[in-house]
């Protein structure tokens, strides 16, 4: 899932100040899971913005709505029925969602209420951790399901740095040493021989350097 956090309220207010009818638009997918932009967070933000507007005597209409997903046009187009009265959309989608909604409704500014952060997992209730960089060339098989790019602070491909203490990273002691986990995992699988291979430097061109990536599946298209 994609994770995000809400921007400071002052920053959000600064961006919506010019507008008189604002639709606060939530997303019930990834950002709902990380408690940043789901239905509830959308209602909270809309209520907070309305309260501040009332306190300041501002003449502004702030209403809310939540889509199942903001990054899929089949859901975004459902806004056709409700969007007409608004002069701005404050989106609680991730960066993908903000841009998808903006592309669909090009006459109305779509303003991001969140800072999109990382691809990760819900490790525990209220805890989300990064574990994937979307490199486009997944090598999790070789490392026992642990990504050295996302989870090793030094992004080492060919073994540990040797600096870890009690299984914790020497760069950031708050995180586990990814390579300790790699070795423990491959030992359990009886596959430590995978570490005898030399892994060349990452081919970053599969992730970046060529502009936005895309995937085309003609079998999925109309």
């Amino acid at each position: 899932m994609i994770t995000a956090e809400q921007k400071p309220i002052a920053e959000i207010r600064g961006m919506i100040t010019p507008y008189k009818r604002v639709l606060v638009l939530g997303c019930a997918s990834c950002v709902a899971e990380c408690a940043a932009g789901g239905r509830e967070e959308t209602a909270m933000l809309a209520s907070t913005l309305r309260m501040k507007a009332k306190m300041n005597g501002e003449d502004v209409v702030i209403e809310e709505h939540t889509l199942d997903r903001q990054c899929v046009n089949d859901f975004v187009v459902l806004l056709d029925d409700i969007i007409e009265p608004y002069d701005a959309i404050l989106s609680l989608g991730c960066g993908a969602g903000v841009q998808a909604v903006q592309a669909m409704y090009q006459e109305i500014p779509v303003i991001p209420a969140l800072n999109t952060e990382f691809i990760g997992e819900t490790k525990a209730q209220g805890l989300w951790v990064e574990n994937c960089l979307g490199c486009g060339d997944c090598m999790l098989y070789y490392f026992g399901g642990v990504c050295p790019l996302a989870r090793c602070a030094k992004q080492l491909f060919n073994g540990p740095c040797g600096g870890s203490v009690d299984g914790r990273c020497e760069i950031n002691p708050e995180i586990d040493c990814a390579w300790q986990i790699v070795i423990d995992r491959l030992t359990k699988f009886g596959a430590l021989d995978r570490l005898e291979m030399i892994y060349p430097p990452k081919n970053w061109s599969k992730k970046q350097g060529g502009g936005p990536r895309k995937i085309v599946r003609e079998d999925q298209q109309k």
Partner: protein
Amino acid sequence: MSDKDHCTLALFYCQNVPESGEAERQALEKTYGLQIRLFPIPCSGRLEPVHLLKALEEFADAVYVISCPEGACRYFEGNYRAKKRVERTREIIAGIGLERERVGIVIGSKDNPIPLSDLVRDIMAKTSGLGPSPVLKPASG
């Protein structure tokens, strides 16, 4: 916009609070009239910050929650969650310049159970000094 001459407390309370049945609730509403809106809930853990924010937005000058003592929640964690959510709500309203003290929580006592009426009296006394909420009575001009 409200032009009332009284402050309104929104009070969400766990139905486990001593002497908090329907008869007691009606008696409190008769005593305090428009100064209080009472919301019995099955567990304080049912509350989310959005409930407290909506109350502040629409009618309440202050919002309080009464939860069960630590270790006594019939759903085990509801009271812990309520405490965290009240604090989160306080942070949110502080972010827009509204006094944190307009939202609060009272945690019951296992050793000295206090009936709802006494808790209401104490909360009303605590919040009376806050005055009307600037949300409901915005700055003129």
